[in-house]
């Protein structure tokens, strides 16, 4: 009896110690992130110098430009993420047995800021840019393309190497042994990809893709640098709103950004669910 009580006490003390160790970072995050979301919700509902109102939300849903912005943002973000994941998977399969140097060179864009990649895209792909000059004219002009091709290109160039690192980390020695065993059992390359490789890389690829998708849905330095002026992305729409009316613009911007945040979290939840579901992949 005394021993059981002592063990329970020790467990409680260990739990309390772990909670105390987690507290600084979790409290900081809860305060900053929670404060930010509450602050944005407050701005959207209580414009400067006015009482509570849903006007900003009504304006948002009545504005056809916002609907265009949502469609444009979701389309470019989904396309960028899907293409980056495909490129990462293809590259991972091609270089998984190569040395560290190839991996480092392929990972070169990972620490490079998004805005810098967008600047490089303008230098190369804008009308009169280096690619235009070298090839004597480009069949399409990705920079400022109304369909957002420039945005997608920048995100794929920047994010595919990030996803590649995650996939390569999963394709370690354990996977190689399983793959060789499957080959010895007579499975075709496609069957090995379907039954051995894909289950190994699915989780890191999905988690990484969620981060990429969330970033592409919310960032606006890349769309501002290489995207079209119309339609805007949601973040660009929010920024433009703040530059119009100083009072109601802030509320509209906060409402638009909150919607974008909710969309990111919802898409992440769907992706996590799909990745867990054995029938989902």
């Amino acid at each position, binding site marked *: 009896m005394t021993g059981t009580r002592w063990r329970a006490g020790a467990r409680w003390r260990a739990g309390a110690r772990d909670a105390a160790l987690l507290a600084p970072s979790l409290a900081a*995050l809860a305060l900053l992130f929670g404060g930010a*979301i509450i602050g944005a919700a407050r701005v959207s509902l209580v414009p400067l110098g006015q009482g509570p109102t849903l006007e900003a939300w009504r304006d948002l849903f009545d504005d056809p430009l916002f609907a265009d912005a949502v469609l444009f943002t979701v389309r470019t973000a989904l396309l960028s993420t899907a293409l980056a994941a495909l490129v990462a998977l293809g590259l991972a399969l091609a270089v998984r047995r190569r040395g560290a140097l190839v991996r*480092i060179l392929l990972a070169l864009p990972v620490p490079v*800021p998004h805005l810098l990649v967008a600047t490089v895209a303008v230098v190369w792909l*804008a009308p009169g840019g*280096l690619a235009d000059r070298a090839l004597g004219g480009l069949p399409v002009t990705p920079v400022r393309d109304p369909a957002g091709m420039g945005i997608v290109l920048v995100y794929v160039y920047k994010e595919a190497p990030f996803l590649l690192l995650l996939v390569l980390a999963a394709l370690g020695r354990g996977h190689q042994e399983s793959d060789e065993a499957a080959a010895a059992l007579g499975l075709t390359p496609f069957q090995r990809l379907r039954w051995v490789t894909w289950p190994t890389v699915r989780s890191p690829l999905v988690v990484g893709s*969620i981060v990429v998708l969330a970033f592409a849905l919310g960032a606006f330095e890349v769309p501002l640098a290489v995207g079209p002026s119309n339609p805007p992305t949601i973040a660009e729409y929010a920024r433009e709103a703040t530059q119009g009316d100083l009072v109601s613009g802030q509320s509209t911007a906060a409402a638009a*950004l909150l919607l974008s*945040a909710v969309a990111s*979290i919802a898409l992440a939840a769907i992706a996590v669910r799909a990745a867990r579901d054995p029938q989902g992949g």
Partner: protein
Amino acid sequence: MAALLASAPLLALVVRAFADEWRAPALVPQQLGLRGVQIAFSGSSAEAFGNSLLVAVATAMVALVLAWPAARVLGERRLRHPAPVFLLLAMPLLVPSYAVGTGLTEWFIRLGLDGTLPALVAGHLTFVLPYVVLVLLSGFGPRLTALEEVARVNGLSPFRRLLWVTLPAAAPTVGASALIGFLVSWSDYGTSLALGGGRPMLPVVLLPFVGADPQVAATLALLFLAPAVGVLAAATRAGRMPL
């Protein structure tokens, strides 16, 4: 070949930054010079570089201090139900940085902190801290715990164990976490724009030049790239990538 394709576009920035005259359709510049450097540094760029550097270093350091104990608990898999902790860590990564900046501005204006460096550090910390915790936790585990136990049995005090065993063993992960934290803060645009209150930050100063003056944009972009090159050099020397 793919590796070359991935790295070559960045090299064009160097030529563009020093091309005073480079009219289409010429493939090489008509005139090289320092016009881009002069314009880039005649405005608020130097101040912006200093601000961005200060905020990124401070954010990474604060994040490391806050993340260390949490990473230790998570890395040693001491929690029976870690999912809620990871969920809280992931949430800021799913939300637009401009949304976080806009929301925090509301409070910082009330506190009289809007546009100050501490406000920028706090805003950046919202995104940097999750990355630092997630990278740092990989440095802790049974191997390090066993080393610390040997040191404890041999009579080393907690401070000496930290100094002589824990820190040297976890140094590569601490370095990688600090670099990731620095780069996430250094690259941030949305929070800096929302919380800066007119204080120049490098990404905010760079963006208008991308469409208006490619030479100045390329010069500032090289400045923006410098820490990333440092990261790659360190990673190459260590023989592995920090992520």
